[in-house]
């Protein structure tokens, strides 16, 4: 992690924007405060920051392509193995297929190396690919959490609930029908 102090005011400002920290101009009197805020935000890993490493992106795009196909069949297990390596950072990112496109879009933003284990991140897609190709989820202890971090209520539960409400309404409607004939077609 490069020192925040050595960055230009513009870079600090860009970093603050990436972490969605509302801020004013980065001047002498405000700089210390903003640096501290950034350190806190980085430590918490609040928002996923795109890496400036272009090589990483090339592999990332490949992984995106491969990752999209299996998600339909076995998303939870694979994301579990993936997340095992990057627990804090990508928990939100890798549940969503769409978030991949979000991830690879801001390519040119140089936000500085947030992660000291960035080489680890670099290795990740290749290890992920190999682990995926074998279709071995591995110790996916975070799998149960995986589908739920992005949605408060899983999608299938929502569908189920919707169907239940529809059935209930139908029953109510049909019980009303016992008293009077169907008028719907008028």
């Amino acid at each position: 992690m490069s020192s925040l102090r050595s960055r230009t005011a513009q870079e600090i400002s860009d970093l603050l924007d990436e972490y969605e920290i509302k801020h004013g101009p980065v001047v002498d009197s405000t700089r210390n405060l903003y640096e501290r805020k950034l350190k806190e935000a980085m430590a918490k890993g609040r928002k996923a920051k795109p890496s400036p490493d272009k090589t990483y992106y090339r592999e990332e795009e490949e992984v995106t392509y491969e990752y999209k196909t299996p998600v339909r069949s076995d998303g939870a297990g694979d994301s579990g193995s993936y997340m095992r390596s990057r627990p804090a950072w990508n928990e939100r990112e890798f549940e969503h297929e769409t978030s991949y496109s979000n991830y690879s879009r801001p390519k040119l933003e140089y936000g500085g190396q947030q992660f000291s284990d960035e080489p680890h991140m670099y290795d990740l897609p290749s290890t992920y690919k190999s682990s995926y190709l074998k279709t071995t989820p591995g110790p996916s202890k975070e799998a149960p959490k995986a589908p739920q971090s992005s949605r408060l209520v899983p999608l299938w539960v929502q569908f189920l609930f919707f169907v239940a409400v529809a059935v209930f309404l139908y029953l109510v409607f049909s019980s009303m029908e016992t008293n009077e004939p169907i008028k719907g077609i008028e």
Partner: protein
Amino acid sequence: MSTTSQKHRDFVGEPMGDKSVMALSGIGEILGKKLEQQGFDKAFVVLGQFLLLKKDSDMFTEWLKDASGANSRQAGSCAQCLREWCDAFL
């Protein structure tokens, strides 16, 4: 505004002009001295900092706690004082 102090009401009731930093609500002699040492010798300079932080109370209180050693109550009081002053005069 029964929850605000007399100092607060005095400050917010008129343009601050050249008032000392100790005229700010929440800032007493000790905190005032610390601020003066850093160059914030007048209330309007602290106002300047408040405005630089885009009138964000949270940011400002954090800055003030760091710069002067104020506690949460004092910093919050100062922030509220400045915010209301801005609402009235800025």
